[in-house]
């Protein structure tokens, strides 16, 4: 097959000492910025753009890609250790990962996150190489109407995320949707709920909310108790997952990988949804539903695998069409453009070195990340033994730096503080942060695609049912609702919703 020859060619390029070096730099930097709360790949790559001027385009791209997926690995670290998700994909990881850490199982949680990510990344890399072109054509079937229906499905499935009250979960989802509407409306340019504050004109930042509602609120809660305690409730038991852990996590990794690979191909919302979807799915099929929300290892393995698989397959639109599906990849296109290469639909034939070299480097990068991350597990877990009175000011400091670096604006720091207080109130009343954040992330996608679809159909709502994919997705929504509402299977619903 041609693909093997091409892949070999790609490995020959990616495994050159220079490119290996840049892959390592990218992976290391990515891990670092993933661990530092707030500082994300977009800011980092923007800062590094001038450096890439003097590199070969392939090396530059390999390094930038390394930063991107390195951040996916690193982002889960803070989510697990201090309940501080750095990006949308690690919000779900925080739910069970942090609980594992509190039970002294931070080691296995971190390790399974790295292992799951590696397996998912390897599988997704092969998928990109083999099925890139047909997957692109499939993703092209997704127009505004399909996206809208997919987001509806995502929201309905999201209610399952809640481990407590369903009513409260629905409330949180809607509050999230509402928060997501803050900012300038893209169709009319009208500012909504910005109160004349220019910093709000582009909406509230995801990191701002996640950091406040999860991280800061957790710190406030911990400070209710005496300062001498650490994050840990119990003694640390083992750094690596046991055989039982692996058995529990394996099917979750497999399902998460498949789900993440599929959703990752959809530009825009896909990758965001994958971690949430994988978690919901795992919770539904798991035999130990009661464990979810209290430190289920499958609840860490599934979303981590899904988000890494999604991160890899989200390269597909960029590699096959030359269209960047997210902000990070738009920056990569910029880096290439500065070199005089504008990626397009012919990138595979015109720039085979770039195309296959990047794909091969993705796999090499994943190997490097496992090698970097597994030995670090011990170090991270040690960090938890630092007395809390020293740990929490450090976390706050890094949060402050990270969030300031997003827009170089002090406003964001105050916003994080405000959301921290808000998150604390939510915690006190037993509301959960995950559905809120999912609603927030999906809100613009839901609204914009609804309006886009209706604009294109000149206001005809039937468009959602006339298009087969959209209709199917909506049918699944209805099916889910029916299952929930039918009395005969009410006992089943109890199982899904109430794990107490």
């Amino acid at each position, binding site marked *: 097959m041609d693909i093997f020859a091409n892949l070999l060619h790609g490995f020959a390029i990616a495994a050159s000492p220079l490119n290996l070096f840049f892959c390592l730099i990218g992976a290391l930097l990515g891990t670092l910025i993933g661990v530092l709360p707030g500082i994300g790949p977009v800011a980092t790559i923007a800062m590094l*753009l001038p450096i890439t001027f003097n590199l070969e385009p392939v090396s530059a791209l390999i390094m930038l890609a390394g930063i991107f997926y390195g951040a996916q690995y690193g982002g889960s670290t803070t989510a697990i250790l201090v309940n501080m998700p750095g990006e949308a994909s690690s919000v779900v990881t925080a739910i069970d990962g942090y609980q594992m850490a509190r039970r002294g199982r931070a080691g296995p949680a971190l390790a399974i996150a790295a292992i799951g990510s590696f397996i998912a990344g390897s599988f997704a890399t092969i998928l990109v190489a083999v099925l890139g072109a047909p997957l692109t054509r499939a993703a092209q079937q997704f127009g505004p109407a399909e996206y809208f229906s997919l987001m509806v499905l995502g929201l309905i499935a999201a209610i399952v995320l809640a481990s407590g009250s369903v009513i409260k979960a629905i409330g949180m989802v809607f509050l999230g949707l509402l928060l997501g509407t803050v900012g300038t409306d893209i169709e009319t340019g009208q500012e909504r709920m910005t109160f004349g504050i220019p910093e709000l004109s582009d909406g509230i930042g995801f990191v701002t909310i996640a950091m406040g509602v999860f991280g800061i609120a957790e710190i406030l809660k911990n400070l209710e108790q005496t300062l001498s305690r650490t994050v840990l409730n119990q003694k640390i038991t083992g750094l690596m997952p046991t055989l039982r852990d692996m058995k529990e996590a394996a099917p979750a990794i497999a399902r998460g990988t498949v789900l993440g690979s599929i959703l990752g191909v959809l530009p825009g919302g896909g990758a965001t949804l994958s971690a949430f979807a994988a978690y919901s799915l795992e919770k539904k099929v798991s035999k130990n539903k009661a464990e979810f929300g209290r430190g289920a290892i499958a609840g860490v393995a599934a979303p981590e695998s899904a988000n890494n698989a999604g991160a890899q397959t989200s390269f597909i639109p960029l590699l096959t069409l030359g269209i960047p599906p997210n902000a990070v990849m738009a920056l990569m296109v910029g880096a290439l453009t500065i070199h005089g290469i504008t990626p397009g639909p012919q990138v595979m034939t015109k720039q085979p070195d770039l195309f296959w070299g990047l794909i091969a480097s993705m796999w090499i990068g994943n190997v490097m990340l496992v090698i970097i991350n597994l030995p670090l597990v011990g170090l991270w877990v040690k960090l938890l033994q630092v007395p809390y009175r020293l740990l929490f000011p450090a976390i706050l400091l890094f949060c402050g730096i990270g969030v300031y670096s997003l827009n170089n604006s002090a406003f964001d720091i105050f916003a994080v503080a405000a959301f921290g207080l808000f998150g604390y109130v939510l915690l006190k009343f037993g509301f959960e942060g995950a559905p809120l954040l999912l609603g927030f992330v999906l809100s613009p996608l839901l609204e914009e695609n609804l309006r886009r679809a209706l604009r294109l159909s000149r206001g005809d709502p039937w468009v959602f049912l006339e298009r087969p994919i959209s209709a199917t997705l909506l049918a699944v929504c209805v099916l889910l609702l029916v299952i929930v509402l039918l009395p005969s299977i009410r006992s089943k619903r109890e199982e899904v919703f109430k794990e107490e």
Partner: protein
Amino acid sequence: MNQPTTRRALVGAFAAAALLGAGPALAQQYPARPITVIVPFAAGGPTDVLARIVTQRMSRSLGQTMVVENVGGAGGTIGVVRGARAAPDGYTLTVGHLGTHVSNIALYRRLQYDPQTDFEPIAPLGVNPMILVAKRGAPATVPEFLAHVRANQERLSYGHAGIGSASHTAALMFHAATGTKVQDVAYRGTGPAMNDLVAGQFDYMIDQALNVLQQVQGGTVLGIAVTTPERLPQVPNLPTLAESGLTGFDVAIWNTLFAPKGTPQPILERLNAAAAEAMADPAIRTRLTELAVQIPSEAELKLGAFKARHAADVARWVPVIRAAGATAE
């Protein structure tokens, strides 16, 4: 670095400042530290790429690094406001384009800067021509396409990258010139819009050549026409709108380096000279040409020469966009 020289320079600067007043002395020693260049859009876009290529070369002539800072958001207004309010000392410059410095006047009722009086142009950095592209299967020749748009105004839709973006501005001008009114569909940026055009979700859009050339050459979208008076060397077969019935149609996204109003003349001259030097560098010229950027002529590069073009564009397009009824805010 060269410590003694820097120190001597500083001593000299202070001495001179004491004797002659700060202005001219500072200008003599300018630039003494890195210069920030605000690009009011996300990194990686056409304006950003252009700014980075040119300022990197300018850094060499100035002997100081020019650091690009991307301050995106709200149609570029957030970054431009920051640039307008910066100290007029030549250490904070702003890259503006046709959107931020012309169409925003019409789009924003309470624009917090005056593009003409708050800024002093240093030099044009290059013009990004635009291409009208349609989904595959649309009528391919310009007259057929224009007839198609005129006949099916109620059914067609065009895409753009957001209110006030280059693609939005150009489309408003196109519709004003053709006397048509077509439903718009807004996206967050060029990428998602192009994705949906390739998939055939909407009918056409007008975007910067840099963004669409590869798609046109790859056959994923249909190139209809160029928006500048001359054809582009990269796609010589593509006619211009001006030669195909829309006489005089000329829309291109100029990008210009601005300093805040009140910047001392010697500093402006120094920066202008550095920009002119960069534009004369064959390596830069090759690079910009590869990116389909039109390089300003020597006459256009003269300090202050840009003001006339700016004023002409404001006079020409602001009423057109106002008449189209588009607003932001």
